[in-house]
């Protein structure tokens, strides 16, 4: 099915717009380009309004305006009736056409007053070759829409690129699973499943009318079925709560993505402040040490010449024998007293004794000045030697202090950065969101635990029921007259089981194919091919993106990548389901970067071989790369131009738009 044309009369800024989508030989792709506010989104809105009686993607500004074109409204005389209408003609491969027309009357009481809307009218006309035209209204008209694109899944067909970023936030596993069922038209099998189950139960109940034992078994089976139903309802409830929690968690994660983790930051800040204090204390100790060095060495360096001249004087006096050699007088006295050489350990001979005694006598007879010089000699030597160490000691301590300073500065910088980060957000809000996240995580985890128990109970209940059914069958088999009924019950049961497994098998096949195609499309679209490793869709139809480090990363990829993933999934869904209705996308590349745009254009070009695609671009989106892929192959290229006054859109050539 494809859209042949759209006519809009007095619909918002489309006073009288007619757009034709001619079918080309190879690619059924149609380009419409217009600047912001030129009426692209209102075109998407008109399609939704025509099919479903309500708009989508209406901007706040448009919401304030009436549906009816305001210029027509101004031009209208008082009490004039204005008609708003959208007519969409679609056709199938056999060339049969269907016209969908929705109209609504508006009564303009006064040109300044808001027009009063009348009732909507929806008429579908089917033009079938060889038959009279069929005019349908009410439920029959709605059924035709359902055959084209059911309302429940319209967001997979007519959608706004700007909202693709939040696609997976709104599309939980259950919703996607339901959409897959709807798109794949598996509802017939489900209806069959339910009906067979009802017949099976009814037959089993009837079989127990005349046999108390069979009745007892049947009652037990019914009781077991009630338990199973209750457990299934519980599982659905738990699943729903888990999904709801995950949905909320995704919303919260999105909000928190750009917000700081207050608890972690505050904790880090506190640690940093303490570490900074510790480093400051250590630095201050080192500064005191440095002051000690400066003060001590100041006198050594300033007085170095005085020290040197005193030592030179002492050396001179010793050379002229005015001073005895530098000897420890106490040691000398001990040697004299003990008469033993403290160096070699032998007793002193006469010559040595005389020498040591003379030396001692010399020292005793040294003048007071000489003695003073001898007292200061050693300390002055030590001071002179020490003064040469200043450079080394000073640089060592200076380096240590500088290292501490660096560490302190690094802590300060980080503390300031944390302060700034925290200051730019409302901490209360962040804390509240984090608390909510924690609460939802708790709910999800509790429900997951509960779900595990429920599943075990269900399994056991099913086994119990199967056991009872076998017993029930054995009892029935004993009764010759119930033979036919037994056969019928067995048939119903087998048929039911086959339908259930067929349904599951089809869903599994669809899931597997959608997974495969989504992966193909995504890796074809995304330019960072090395970053991502795999795309999977689990049994619950929840999409997962795995990076090269095997981490789940759907929640942390960029808005553009999320949009590409949503598009990949949608395209896969379309192709796998075989649902051939067109794809209409408003601003498809709004969040897609240049690198991905060319890929995007190439992929859509390929898809348009099998499916009609209508793309509503802004000029910015319709870049050279996109043009190079789509310009020559597109079946139609139109421009949306806003006439002066900005209230009427005109369709024309792209160059004039």
């Amino acid at each position, binding site marked *: 099915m494809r859209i042949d044309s759209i006519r809009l009369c007095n619909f918002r800024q489309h006073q009288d717009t007619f757009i034709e989508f001619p079918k080309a030989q190879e690619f059924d792709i149609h380009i419409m380009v217009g600047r912001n506010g030129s009426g692209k989104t209102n075109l998407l809105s008109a399609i939704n309004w025509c099919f479903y009686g309500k708009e989508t993607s209406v901007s706040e500004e448009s919401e304030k305006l009436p549906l009816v074109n305001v210029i027509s409204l101004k031009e209208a005389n008082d009490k004039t009736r204005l008609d708003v209408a959208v007519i969409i003609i679609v056709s199938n491969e056999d060339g049969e056409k269907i016209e969908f027309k929705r109209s609504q009357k508006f009564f303009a009481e006064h040109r300044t007053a808001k027009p009063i809307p009348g009732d909507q009218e929806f008429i579908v006309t089917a033009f079938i070759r060889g038959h009279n035209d069929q005019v349908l209204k009410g439920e029959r008209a709605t059924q035709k829409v359902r055959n084209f694109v059911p309302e429940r899944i319209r967001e997979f067909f007519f959608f706004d690129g700007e909202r693709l970023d939040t696609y997976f936030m709104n599309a939980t596993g259950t919703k996607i699973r339901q959409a897959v069922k709807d798109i794949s038209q598996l509802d017939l099998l489900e209806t069959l499943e339910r009906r067979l189950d009802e017949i099976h139960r009814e037959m089993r109940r009837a079989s127990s009318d005349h046999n108390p034992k069979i009745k007892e078994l049947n009652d037990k089976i019914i009781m077991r079925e009630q338990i199973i139903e209750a457990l299934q309802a519980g599982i659905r409830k738990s699943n729903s709560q888990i999904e709801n929690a995950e949905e909320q968690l995704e919303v919260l994660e999105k909000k928190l993505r750009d917000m700081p983790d207050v608890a972690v930051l505050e904790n880090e800040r506190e640690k940093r402040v303490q570490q900074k204090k510790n480093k400051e204390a250590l630095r201050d100790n080192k500064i005191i040490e440095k002051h000690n060095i400066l003060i001590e060495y100041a*006198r050594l360096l300033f007085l170095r010449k005085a020290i040197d001249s005193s030592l030179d004087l002492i050396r001179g006096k010793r050379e002229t024998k005015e001073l005895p050699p530098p000897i420890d007088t106490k040691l000398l006295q001990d040697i004299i007293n003990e008469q033993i050489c403290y160096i070699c350990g032998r007793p002193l001979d006469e010559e040595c004794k005389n020498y040591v005694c003379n030396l001692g006598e010399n020292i005793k007879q040294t003048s*007071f000045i000489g003695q003073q010089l001898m007292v200061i000699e050693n*300390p002055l030597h030590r001071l002179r030697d020490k003064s040469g160490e200043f450079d080394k000691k*000073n640089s060592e301590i200076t380096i240590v202090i500088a290292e501490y300073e660096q560490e302190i500065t690094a802590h300060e910088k980080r503390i300031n950065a944390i302060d700034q980060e925290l200051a730019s957000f409302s901490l209360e809000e962040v804390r509240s969101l984090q608390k909510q996240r924690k609460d939802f995580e708790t709910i999800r985890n509790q429900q997951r635990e509960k779900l595990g128990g429920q599943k075990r109970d269900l399994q056991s209940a099913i086994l119990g029921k199967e056991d009872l059914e076998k017993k029930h069958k054995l009892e029935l088999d004993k009764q010759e007259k119930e033979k036919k009924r037994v056969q019928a019950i067995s048939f119903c049961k087998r048929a039911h089981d086959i339908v259930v497994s067929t349904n599951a098998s089809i869903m599994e096949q669809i899931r597997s194919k959608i997974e495969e195609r989504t992966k193909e499309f995504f890796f074809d679209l995304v330019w960072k091919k090395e970053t991502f490793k795999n795309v999977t869709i689990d049994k619950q139809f929840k999409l997962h993106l795995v990076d090269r480090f095997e981490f789940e990363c759907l929640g942390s990829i960029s808005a553009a990548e999320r949009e590409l993933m949503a598009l990949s999934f949608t395209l896969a869904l379309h192709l796998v389901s075989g649902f051939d209705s067109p794809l209409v996308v408003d601003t498809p590349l709004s969040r897609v970067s240049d690198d991905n745009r060319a890929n995007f254009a190439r992929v859509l070009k390929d898809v348009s071989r099998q499916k009609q695609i209508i793309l509503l671009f802004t000029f910015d989106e319709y870049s050279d790369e996109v043009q190079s892929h789509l310009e020559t192959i597109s079946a139609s290229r139109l421009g949306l131009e806003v006439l002066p006054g900005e209230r009427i859109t005109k369709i024309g050539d792209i160059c004039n738009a």
Partner: protein
Amino acid sequence: MPEKPDRLYIDQSDVQRFDDLEKNVRMFEKRQKKELFLTAMAIGWKNEARIPMGKRQEFVRMEYLRPEDEALIYAVAISAESVDVLADPLKVMQIAEEYAHGGIPLLIAKINQPGSFEKNFEKELLDNFNELF
């Protein structure tokens, strides 16, 4: 044998200066009085600022001086006069006190110079070191 004096004195007019030094200059906070005295004396000697004392005020008891501290005082006295000055310990101490009296205003002037005193002081010591070695 001449008797050694039991304490060092500063000029009465320097009492406030030493007091301020200890209270207001970070590098000299909680310093022993002998350290302040020896620093002032070294700066005075280095700058040949030996100024006779006026009214004297007790400042440091000699028992707090280490042999190295006393050796410095003696070296200053020898280089200021001659080795004979050692015969008069009172004179030795007097010479040291006169250099401290001449050095303290110079130290205060250094502190009041623009920029960081600590950095300037460190630089002066490094220059001195490089000159000597």
